[in-house]
Each structure stands twice: as structure tokens, then as C-alpha cells.
């Protein structure tokens, strides 16, 4: 990655500095699929990991049925620890297992892993010479019909605060499989969000590569930039499609690793745009919007960051489609918000041009 230290802030200079990085992002754009779903993919990938490694111990706090642990539990009952409804104890036990050489994978809902057991995750899993230890957190953001009790809308913010913690928000089943495998190879604690039930497959698993800390460009267009993470990336792609229907070609940068964040990729893309629209299945405080802002402000890019996600309020209850629509997070709504702010096509060199269809 080339450094920005030589930059003085001119638009042309910015784009020149970052061109090689953008080329690299374009060169490794993953192959996408459409319309494919998989049922309970986490159960499969966890089972595969359990078969490959006999040091994997899976822990549940009375949610094994609802977090796709049944296949692992059935095949490896001796390596499955059911702790009952006691998340603080679960993460403590996971810490003891990690410190005695096992790879604990503690699986629960995001709210319980973060709000309820924050100190336990921090102290038991992130201090000392703990090797790999994985927290898998289901019901990220608004993927639950319940409200604040179950919607993990601040988990990424909380987990980003913990030193050494890697924070992952995969976008689909392909990436979730790969993220779990990468987390298992990582020497330290990892918090990853989990997707259950019928999960979209937007990435072609053939030759799909997941690297902790690497962002991927999914769409490359000159007219504007949307940055997404997790399901937010899927929503960003919906918006990108909507914008394309209106004649605009937006870039979509997918940032599945919130920490350590891919500053290089974000800076490279940010150098080409005046505005970054971030889309996340999370509060607009502390998650992707904040992480992206930290990157661009620390480099003094002067780029505007427009956060889209769950506002600073408890999100409504209901189906994910309903809640998305209530929070203006559908593809059409996001595209509309982008149009309102950017007015259509913008680029750092050409300024903002009004190309609003109809």
C-alpha cells in the first residue's frame, strides 16, 4: 500500500496516489452469485471445523438449537459444553479452555455476548496469552422479530473497544464459512456475527478467499461510493442496483472486518469521492460509520461520511423487511437518500453533477 503522507489534499493528487490500490481492489473482486440461499450454513461449517480439529470445543448458553449447533453437538458430544442460561459463566469457561490449549467457540446471541457479558469477554478472552478463541453472535442487528432485548445493534461498537479483539461481520453464507475458518487460524480472540436460517449466498464459494482485515470491492463505478458490512453490504448492493436502474454507477466496498479495518482500501476508494455512504445492520454510532470516519479523518481527507443503519433509537419489532422499510434501509430507500444528498453523480475531480433521472 502506498502511503498518503505525501498527499497535500488536491483531488488529482489523491486519485493518483491511490490508483494502484484501486487497481488491486478491482483485480481481486470476488465472483458474485445471485438468488442462491443455504439453510443453516453455520452448522455445516462448524461441523467441518470440528472434524478437522480435535481441539475445537463448542459452548452454548441454552441456544444450541437456535444457533445451528445441533450437527456439532450430535457428532462431538464430548466437545460440546452446555452451560445453561449463563453467558458470563460461558465466556469464563471459554477463557479457561483457551488458556489450556483448546479452541473454544462460544455461541450465543449478540446481545448476550456483548451487553451482558462484556467484561467476561474482555477479561477472559482478550487478556493474557490466549490463543484462538471465537465468539459467534447470532441475531445481528435487526435480524430478529424481537426488539431491543434481542437486536444486537451496538455489538460491533462494543467489541471494537476491546484490545486485540478481531471483529467480523460476514455478508453471506460463503463469507461466514470462510470467516469461521480464518478465525480458527487466528492467534487471538475473534468476535464474529452469525447468520442463521435461510442465508443468502452472494459470493461464489469457488476460490473465495477471506482474509481478516481485508475489504473487497464488489462493484466498481465512478459515480459514488457505498461502503457496507455484513447484511448492510447486501442492502448496499440493493441500493447500487437501484441507482444503476437510474443510470448511475456506484462503487460498493465491502468491509467484513470492522477491526482491524482495511484502511488502505477505504483510503484508496475515499480518495476518489467527496462522500462515503456507509450501510450497516447496526447502530450508526460506533460501528462501520465510525470506523470509516476514523480512517478518513485521521488522514485528513475531508470526505463526508453519511451513516445509514439503525439510528440512535431502539429499532422497531417485526420482520426484517418491515424493519428495513421503517428505518429507510431498503435498496430503494438507501438509493433515495443517496440521491438526496449527492444529487446523483459525483467524483472528486469532476465535482457533483446533477444527473437525476425522472
Amino acid at each position, binding site marked *: 500500500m502506498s502511503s498518503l503522507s505525501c498527499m497535500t489534499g488536491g483531488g488529482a493528487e489523491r486519485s493518483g496516489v491511490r490508483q494502484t490500490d484501486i487497481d488491486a481492489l478491482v483485480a481481486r473482486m470476488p465472483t458474485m452469485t445471485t438468488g442462491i440461499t443455504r439453510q443453516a450454513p453455520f452448522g455445516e461449517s462448524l461441523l467441518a471445523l470440528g472434524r478437522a480439529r480435535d481441539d475445537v470445543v463448542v459452548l452454548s448458553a441454552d441456544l444450541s438449537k437456535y444457533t445451528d449447533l445441533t450437527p456439532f453437538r450430535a457428532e462431538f458430544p464430548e466437545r460440546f459444553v452446555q452451560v445453561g442460561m*449463563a453467558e458470563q*459463566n460461558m465466556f*469464563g469457561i471459554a477463557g479457561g479452555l483457551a488458556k489450556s490449549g483448546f479452541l473454544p467457540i462460544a455461541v450465543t446471541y449478540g446481545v448476550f455476548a456483548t451487553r451482558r457479558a462484556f467484561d467476561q469477554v474482555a477479561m477472559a478472552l482478550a487478556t493474557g496469552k490466549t490463543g484462538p478463541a471465537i465468539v459467534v453472535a447470532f441475531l445481528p442487528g435487526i435480524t430478529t422479530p424481537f426488539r431491543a432485548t434481542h437486536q444486537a445493534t451496538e455489538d460491533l461498537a462494543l467489541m471494537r473497544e476491546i484490545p486485540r479483539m478481531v471483529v467480523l461481520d460476514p455478508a453471506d453464507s460463503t463469507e461466514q464459512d470462510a470467516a469461521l475458518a480464518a478465525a480458527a487460524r487466528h492467534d487471538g480472540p475473534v468476535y464474529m456475527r452469525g447468520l442463521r436460517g435461510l442465508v443468502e449466498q452472494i459470493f461464489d464459494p469457488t476460490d473465495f478467499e477471506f482474509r481478516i482485515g481485508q475489504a473487497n470491492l464488489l462493484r466498481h463505478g465512478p459515480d459514488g461510493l457505498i461502503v457496507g458490512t455484513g447484511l448492510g453490504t447486501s442492502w448496499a448492493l440493493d441500493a447500487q442496483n437501484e441507482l444503476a436502474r437510474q443510470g448511475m454507477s456506484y462503487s460498493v466496498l465491502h468491509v467484513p472486518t470492522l477491526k482491524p479495518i482495511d484502511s488502505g482500501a477505504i483510503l484508496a476508494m475515499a480518495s476518489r469521492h467527496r462522500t462515503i455512504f456507509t450501510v450497516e445492520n447496526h447502530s450508526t454510532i460506533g460501528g462501520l460509520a465510525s470506523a470509516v470516519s476514523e480512517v478518513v479523518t485521521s488522514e485528513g481527507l475531508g470526505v463526508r461520511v453519511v451513516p445509514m443503519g439503525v439510528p440512535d433509537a431502539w429499532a422497531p419489532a417485526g420482520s426484517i423487511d418491515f424493519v428495513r422499510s421503517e428505518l429507510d434501509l431498503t435498496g430503494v430507500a438507501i438509493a433515495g437518500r443517496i440521491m438526496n444528498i449527492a444529487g446523483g453523480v459525483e467524483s472528486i475531480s469532476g465535482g457533483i453533477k446533477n444527473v437525476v433521472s425522472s
Partner: protein
Amino acid sequence: MKSDAEIVDIARSLRRRCIMMCRGRGQGYVGQGLALADLMAILYFDEMRRDGGAELIDRLVLSTGHSAIALYSVLGELGEYTDDELATYGMDRSRIEESPLAGLPGFLVTGGSLGQGLSQAVGFAIGDRIRGSEARTFCLISDGELQEGQTWEAIMSGGHFRLGSLVLLVDNNRMQADGDTVEIMNVEPIEAKLEAFGWSTLRVDANDVPALRAALATTRAVSNRPYALVCDTVPGKGAATIEGFQRTHYVRAGDEVWANALADVQ
């Protein structure tokens, strides 16, 4: 196997070291260090087994980070830390922190965020079961930590999983930061509560070396129940100067006090 007299000598040495550690800055958790000296001497010089290479097979999980001074003193006795380094206890730039994080030699977990250690000890014991190891796990908590909800989650799981290799040592010093435990939030009757959760229990005067050795020997019996020893301790034990203080949760004192305390244990 060491004689009781030899253990008493080691405990005296640990007490001296605790006082020397606090003397540097004139403050520290000396009350706890002195109270736990007999237990530490027995655990590390008798009860916990070592392999051929003298590495510990059994382990101590210290939940009460504030009582780290007791562990430092025994690690000093074992040569893990020099007395010069231990004398920097709590000082800026010293790794001899008053409540250290996991990873410092001899400290398996991060204690100090009280109430978390027993869960991790349960994790070690479950790991031993999966691995087929016969290692025993001792976990030291304070009576105050029985007020933390997580401690009871861990106690429930230790009983549920029938972790016969797990021994909970409750440092029942009957004091906590804000005053006497019985006044702040009574934790008694400890044995009855633990037994209801599936543990075997025994109460012992943990400043009586022969009695404490006998009690620890009892916990060795192969069983499918975890064992809890309620260790009644006297804060400041062995140094009348410290013992005489009204409040010994944390002691700040001038050098004369430390000199007197040192003389007490000689």
C-alpha cells in the same frame, strides 16, 4: 513430603516477603498476603503435584486479583521473581502489579475483575476431562466474590458437571472494601449453599497449618463432586502490627509500621 514445621517456616518466609513488597511504596494488600501465607505454602510446597521436570501438574486459578501479593510471595520463594523485583510491587513501570493480568509468570487468568475466576477454573477442569488429564484445579476466591452472580453460575456448573478435579478455596476473611462482609451483604451459610449446588464442603482454620493440610488432603479423594474449602483466615495473620489494624483491606503505613511488622514475623 514436608513436615508441618517446614511448611510453617516457608509460610513465615512468605509473610516476610509480603511485608517487604509493601514496604517499598508503603502500601499494599498486605492483610490478604499474610492471611493466605499458610495456604500458599501448603499448596505450592506440598499439595499441588509436580511432574518429573518439576513443572506443576495441578494449578491454581487466582480469582481474587487483589490477593496477588500472596501468589507473588510464593513465586518469589520458588525463584520465579527476585526479591528485588518483588520490592517494586505496585510501582510505576514494574510488572509486579497489584492486580496483574493473565500471562505474567504464575498467573493463569486475569483476576481482579472479581467474580470471574471460578468460571475459568471450570473451563480448565472441563479441558482436563476432555483431554483425559488427571490434573487438579484449585481456585481461590474471596468471600466477597460470593456476592457476584457469575460466581454462582460457576458454582452451579461445577456441581452440574460433577468436576471432581476442582477445588474451590474461599478465602473467608470476612471483610471487603466497604466494611465487614456480614454487614455489606452476608454470604453465610456458605457450606449449606454450596452443598445445595452439589459440592462437598469443609470449613477449616486456614491459618492452622496441620488442620489446613488435613483438609486439603481430604479434597484429594476421587469423587464426582467438586470440593469447596471454606478457609477462615485472619487478615494480617502472623504480624500483630497489621493484625491489630481495624481495617486491613488495604494498608497504607509509614516505614516504622512495616519495620515492626517485619519484626513480628521473624
